[in-house]
């Protein structure tokens, strides 16, 4: 019997998948991104952001291996081993990933395909703008022309939470409430933790800092630290370079497990309820300077 959350593709559907991967590969290639292949078998690493959700296998030596659950970490590790971590490079990949989700459902297979790129060795608003423009083009190539790209700054949230000077578990409770935009819980937690004044006001504003350009000005009002202001300057610099890309913003996006340090982005479409694409900048996390994004092939097939 075929395991749950896996699919067989035949006929027209298999051809459409192949054509879509081909079109994206050609687009990335035309922008100077080189193909890379990384192994599907990895040595287990408890520090991996998806470690808990990855499939585990036992090697002949008895050591535990994991099935590749994400490309960015895999590629970063490969570049570190090859001594390419510091060099400017444009890489593209396409292939399967595996996650042992509790149940497979619409747009959430346990074996799924991603096509993506990483821009390594540079960190600048120009580099981020290059990736966002490429992401936008990739969506159009994939037939998701109605999609919009949303940009967030997780560091903006973490900065404000740090400013509240709370123990880690309380900080984490606040982060969770912000990420779910659960304003009632957030207000109650801030009260209970005794957070007051401008910091309280700024944290409480985070969940609603989403929308068009107007939220940039609003975010400025709540940028309390020097770093938050620099992050917003960076974001403005990226946006100025992309007058033709329709961007929306969410300054209340703050997921738990990720390696992103700079701006992050996702693509949404009115035609499907889950993000089609995700990415961001992760300087200093896995590599000194790097950013990238990946498109979910199965999700694109739902809208294309």
């Amino acid at each position: 019997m075929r395991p749950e959350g896996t699919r067989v593709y035949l006929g027209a559907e298999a051809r459409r998948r192949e054509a879509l991967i081909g079109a994206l590969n050609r687009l990335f290639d035309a922008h100077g991104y080189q193909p890379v292949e990384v192994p599907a078998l990895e040595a287990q690493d408890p520090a991996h952001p998806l470690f808990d959700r990855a499939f585990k296998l036992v090697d002949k030596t008895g050591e535990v291996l994991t099935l590749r659950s994400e490309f960015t970490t895999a590629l970063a590790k490969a570049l570190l081993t090859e001594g390419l971590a510091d060099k400017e490079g444009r890489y593209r990949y396409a292939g399967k990933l595996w996650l042992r989700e509790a149940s497979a459902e619409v747009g959430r297979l346990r074996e799924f395909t991603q096509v993506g790129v990483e821009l390594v060795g540079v960190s600048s608003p120009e580099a981020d703008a290059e990736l966002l423009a490429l992401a936008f083009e990739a969506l159009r190539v994939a037939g998701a022309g109605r999609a919009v790209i949303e940009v967030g700054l997780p560091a903006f949230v973490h900065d404000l939470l740090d400013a509240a000077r709370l123990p880690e578990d309380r900080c984490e409770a606040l982060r969770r409430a912000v990420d779910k935009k659960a304003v009632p819980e957030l207000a109650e937690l801030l009260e209970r933790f005794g957070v007051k004044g401008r910091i309280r006001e700024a944290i409480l504003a985070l969940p609603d800092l989403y929308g068009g350009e107007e939220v940039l000005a609003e975010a400025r009002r709540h940028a309390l630290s020097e770093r938050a202001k620099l992050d917003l300057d960076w974001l403005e610099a990226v946006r100025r370079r992309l007058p033709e890309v329709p961007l929306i913003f969410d300054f209340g996006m703050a997921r738990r497990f990720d390696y992103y340090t700079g701006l992050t982005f996702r693509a949404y479409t009115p035609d499907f309820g889950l993000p089609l694409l995700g990415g961001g900048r992760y300087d200093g996390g896995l590599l000194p300077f790097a950013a990238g994004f990946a498109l979910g092939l199965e999700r694109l097939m739902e809208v294309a």
Partner: protein
Amino acid sequence: MRLVVALPKGRLLEESRRALAQAGLRLPAPEARKMRLSTEDAELILVRNADVPTYVELGIADLGVVGKDNIEEAGRDLYEPVDLGFGACRLSLIRKPGDSGPIRRVATKYPRITERWLKEQGIPADVIKLHGNVELAALVGLADAVVDVVETGQTLRAAGLAEVATLMESTARLIVNKSALKVKAARIKPLIARLRAP
């Protein structure tokens, strides 16, 4: 920009419709045996309480109304921006009065919340998932205790049972699909603001 709204059949339905209507989102009135009802700018789908988070997370519905208890139990990736205030109830641990033996088996419709709570309390009990009439399990000895929804406590006392502890308090929440909130912000953001207005 049409909105698809998932509401639970049962006691929250009328109050949810009224709250949304006051905030400017008029939904069609339920008709016997109809699961989907449409107006020009909205579609209403009627589902079971526990299924509302599923329809919303996967984007079949843009938004929905459901109790905090069902949201916690579902553990799905959603926005929950508004506490609507109605539908107040609590999840309680319930036993026969006088039962003081160790708790080894707990029956409930909320296995996820129950397991988490038992773990926090350091009680090494097994959880049995039931689909209804949960109190019965405590009365007939299927379990040493049950976790169930309590509104006033009257039904419970009438059945000869007692609340031992409260796991969580719950009220109805507006939940929103993560992508819909962004793509349909022009309609949903003002709706949220009006629902929050006292």
